[in-house]
């Protein structure tokens, strides 16, 4: 017991004590969190009317961000597969940071769902046993199960590995091996179920296409790893963690394949809708060309398309893939491109035109955007704190005492 408390304080100290840059970063994030909380309190008081969502477009920016982040979380699996199954050493060593990213992303997902709810106090109604979860009929119930399960699996793996490392021992594959194997289909499932959430609605022809789930996965395997490439470079610059270029280039290569599939699936969908030209093409017409003079999404989706194609070429050519300037450009392009395509570009056209043919153009309001930024800041802060603890454990700078107290030291790392 004493041991646990002592270790807890070592961990706490590790998180709480940092240099000026660290505090400045936390203060920066806190500012946006405060703005987001302030906006959210306004929303709690006045209702979701402070957003631009209405009966015609009943989901908007919050659900768009949620969808994108499920993809980021799912992408952790992309690192797990080569790391553990094929024992590709350079990536194996950085899987931990991917899993911590998944934990942060899922937390953001859950927050985006919470802020989208009209009655957040009643969230317990959706839980199994305490509430009346509509399982297996409702895909939203499935999503609750898979997202929370994914959060649990990744938390257990990450914290077990960290704990073993912190007491100076190698982690036992016999303990987490099965969980790691389980996490692979589970990661696929969180994104598949989220795709099915939209896919299963016959009322919304834009989503009711069987290509939706494969497209979700393909685009997730672009944006998630791209985000990780950027983060890994930051981690290795700011800490003593060594991340081999080989690992980063391997991930970049995987993104190229994923983007090829993503663009192909997109092309297949665009062909089907426009060539057959039935009225089911209306949402896609709205997205790419505008409908009845409403065309606010049009520049965005073309911007995203250009970014994705450019990034694809940059990832594909070994020369640009293995040059950090072009590689980082490509990563940023993919993150923005997929954020638009899998976010607003996916959610809004599902509702435009609405089921009775009305074209209501949705643009998020300032409070809505502030709440979303607040959640992103919470996610960034969570990831920062997790890394602040994980990195020194990983590099062996911080060690917990195990069993009989031996060599107790809670050193901080230098940036």
């Amino acid at each position, binding site marked *: 017991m004493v041991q646990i408390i002592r270790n807890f304080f070592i961990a706490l100290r590790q998180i709480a004590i940092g240099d000026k840059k660290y505090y400045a970063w936390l203060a920066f994030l806190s500012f946006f969190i405060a703005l987001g909380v302030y906006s959210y309190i306004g929303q709690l008081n006045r209702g979701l009317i402070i957003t631009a969502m209405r009966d015609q477009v009943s989901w908007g920016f919050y659900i768009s961000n949620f969808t994108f982040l499920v993809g980021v979380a799912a992408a952790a699996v992309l690192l797990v597969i080569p790391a553990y199954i094929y024992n590709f050493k350079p990536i194996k060593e950085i899987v931990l940071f991917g899993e911590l990213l998944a934990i942060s992303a899922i937390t953001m997902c859950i927050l985006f769902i919470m802020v989208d709810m009209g009655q957040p106090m009643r969230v317990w*109604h959706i839980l199994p046993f305490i509430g009346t979860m509509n399982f297996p009929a409702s895909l939203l119930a499935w999503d609750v199960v898979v997202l929370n399960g994914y959060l649990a699996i990744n938390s257990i793996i990450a914290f077990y590995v960290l704990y073993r490392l912190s007491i100076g021992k190698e982690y036992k594959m016999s303990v987490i091996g099965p969980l790691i194997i389980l996490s692979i289909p589970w990661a696929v499932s969180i994104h598949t179920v989220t795709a099915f959430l939209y896919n299963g609605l016959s009322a919304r022809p834009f989503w009711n296409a069987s290509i939706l789930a494969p497209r979700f996965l393909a685009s997730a395997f672009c944006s998630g790893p791209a985000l990780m490439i950027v983060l890994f470079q930051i981690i290795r610059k700011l800490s003593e963690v060594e991340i081999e270029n080989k690992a980063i280039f391997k991930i970049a290569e995987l993104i190229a394949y994923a983007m090829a599939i993503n663009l192909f699936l997109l092309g297949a969908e665009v062909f089907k809708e426009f060539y057959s030209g039935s009225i089911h093409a209306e949402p896609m017409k709205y997205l790419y060309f505008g409908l009845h003079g409403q065309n606010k999404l049009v520049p965005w989706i073309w911007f995203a398309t250009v970014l994705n194609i450019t990034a694809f070429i940059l990832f594909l050519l070994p020369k640009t893939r293995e040059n950090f300037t072009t590689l980082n450009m490509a990563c940023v392009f993919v993150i923005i491109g997929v954020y638009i395509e899998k976010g607003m570009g996916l959610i809004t056209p599902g509702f435009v035109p609405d089921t009775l043919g009305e074209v209501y153009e949705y643009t998020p309001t300032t409070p809505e955007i502030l709440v979303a930024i607040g959640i992103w800041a919470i996610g960034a802060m969570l990831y920062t704190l997790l890394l602040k603890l994980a990195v020194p454990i990983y590099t062996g700078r911080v060690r917990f005492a195990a069993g009989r107290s031996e060599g107790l030291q809670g050193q901080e790392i230098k940036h």
Partner: protein
Amino acid sequence: MDNDEKENKNLTRRTLLKGAALGLAGVALPLDRANASFWESFFQKHFREMNDAEIKKVISRLEKEYAEKYKKAITIGNEKPLPGVLFGYGLDLSRCIGCRRCVYACVDENNQSLDPQIHWITVLRFKKGEKWVSLEESEKYYNPETVPQEDYFYMPVQCQQCENPPCVKSCPTQATWKDPDGIVVIDYNWCIGCRYCMAACPYGARRFNWAAPNRPSEKINPNTHYLGNRPRYKGVVEKCTFCVQRTRSAQGRYPACVEACPVGARKFGNLLDPESEMRYLIKHKRVFRLKEDLNTNPKFYYFFAYGN
């Protein structure tokens, strides 16, 4: 009295802990309202999981709350579906003149919010000679001097009370369900406001309370049903219930829209009764249902009584 207070305090403390355990600590708990009524409503069970005594208790609490809020007595009924009844609705497109009296009769009967304005019925207008079954050329917003207009025809749309309702299937909390008389109802105290049902509904029938519903006390219809027209809350979904407070009552009244229609375009009856008007018109008129390709199997029949 003292005991009661102690009880309440205990309840508050216990429930507070439970609330925190549920991960709600992040949500600002309205501690200033931490009275028994608040927590009773917080822990109210799902409507279909309560027995009659529990429902009675909930209803009397809600009546008290409404009386406080609206300064007048509002009764909340809980009439159950009648055996051997499956409600169906008929709408004669050849008669509808687009006056939208049904829309406002519905608002007054069912206590919809006036600001922001909520309508359960949408009367679509189509230009004659244009394509219309896909609804893409429909108009919702029009305000002519007189109706009907020469070049237009009209199609009212409201909840189609599907036999195979996508909204019920999608609801993650079972807050909406289809009763045996075929009416799809919502427990406004159980809905979490996720709006998945609105994404699932092919008929745009569901409405969300984006803000706190606003309806002056003198305009409140005091005869309500728990699953129907009782005043709603901010952040929950609502919809047409075929005026469950009327149609399930002992007198067996028509829905307000049926009564309000000046041209008799609206029909209502029991689909299981071979002698009913509904069965007659299904048998003898050219009927169709909206978006039949989606297999939702609506109990809302559009028909043409005469050619024009």
